[in-house]
């Protein structure tokens, strides 16, 4: 989860998020250099004693400041499109879970190997145990195996919601009447937090998502399955 006053991205827990962080660093470096150039130009403008009222054209400069931004945009677009198509790859998921958004909780359905359906409500502050995270912890977590491709089918029962886990690089809208699909493969075990990311009413900020990723062996023999 994020720590206090964190501005940057969380550490990656999936290969897609690793690629997104790399792309983010790449774009940020380009942005930094552009900002540096603009600040320098501003400094020159503010400190010059030259005043020229008879400039008629500046063809070379206009050519440069047209072509250069086009090249920069291509440099940013190519890795971006690569990651975009990477996120659309469906690599034979071994597990499918349905996630249904409600006002203001999530319902999860594990129907692959039996029927397990449960609701996931935020823990109210009065019910928090010492060590629990306020506004983030839930009564029933989504338990999933590590290093197994998982398919999430996301929809909503009432209004728009969005199922998001920043550390996995996931954010998928839950739209009533539509089934959206996202896949991911987690690379390390742990507990990962997310929050609803589409305004959905009074308690939009109070319907978090908690993923508990455990080793496959423990997942297979654990109480999550009901055969």
């Amino acid at each position: 989860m994020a720590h206090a006053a964190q501005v940057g991205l969380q550490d990656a827990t999936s290969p897609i998020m690793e690629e997104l962080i790399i792309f983010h660093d790449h774009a940020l470096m380009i942005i930094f250099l552009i900002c540096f150039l603009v600040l320098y130009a501003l400094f020159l403008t503010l400190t010059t004693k030259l005043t020229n009222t008879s400039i008629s054209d500046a063809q070379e400069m206009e050519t440069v400041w047209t072509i250069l931004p086009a090249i920069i945009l291509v440099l940013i677009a190519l890795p971006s499109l690569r990651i975009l198509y990477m996120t659309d790859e469906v690599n034979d998921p071994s597990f499918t879970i349905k996630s249904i958004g409600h006002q203001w909780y999530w319902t999860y359905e594990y129907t692959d190997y039996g029927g397990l359906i449960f609701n996931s409500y935020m823990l109210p502050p009065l019910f928090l145990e010492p060590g629990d995270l306020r506004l983030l912890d839930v009564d029933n977590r989504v338990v999933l195996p590590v290093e197994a491709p998982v398919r999430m089918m996301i929809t909503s029962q009432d209004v728009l919601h969005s199922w998001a886990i920043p550390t996995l690089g996931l954010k998928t809208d839950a739209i009533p009447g539509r089934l959206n699909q996202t896949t991911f493969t987690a690379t390390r075990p742990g507990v990962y937090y997310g929050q609803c990311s589409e305004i959905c009413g009074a308690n939009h900020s109070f319907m978090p998502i908690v993923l508990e990723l455990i080793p496959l062996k423990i997942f297979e023999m654990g109480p999550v399955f009901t055969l």
Partner: protein
Amino acid sequence: MAAAPEPGEPEERKASCTSLHLSYWKSLKLLGFLDVENTPCARHSILYGSLGSVVAGFGHFLFTSRIRRSCDVGVGGFILVTLGCWFHCRYNYAKQRIQERIAREEIKKKILYEGTHLDPERKHNGSSSN
């Protein structure tokens, strides 16, 4: 993240939370957003870019004695050298990550299949002896 402190170890947890916050606030961010410490290749590129900027700007000034134009050359040198070092370093970093991933997969395969007919080493030794 912050569990309740056990009776025997309150100082350790406080110290770890404090050090986490201190380490966050200690990270150097150029122009307020480029985290030079935690971004791979950023520190290396900025340092070489600064060196290139000084060399280009000062060198130009030595030859021409034009201050303003030398500053422009310095800024241009900084941008070009930083970009060049950045792409070169990121390319090598990407190659290194691919090699690490291949090595990790091969180690996993070796551990899983050692002693079985799928052992990659047995296949390799069998083909070389034939």
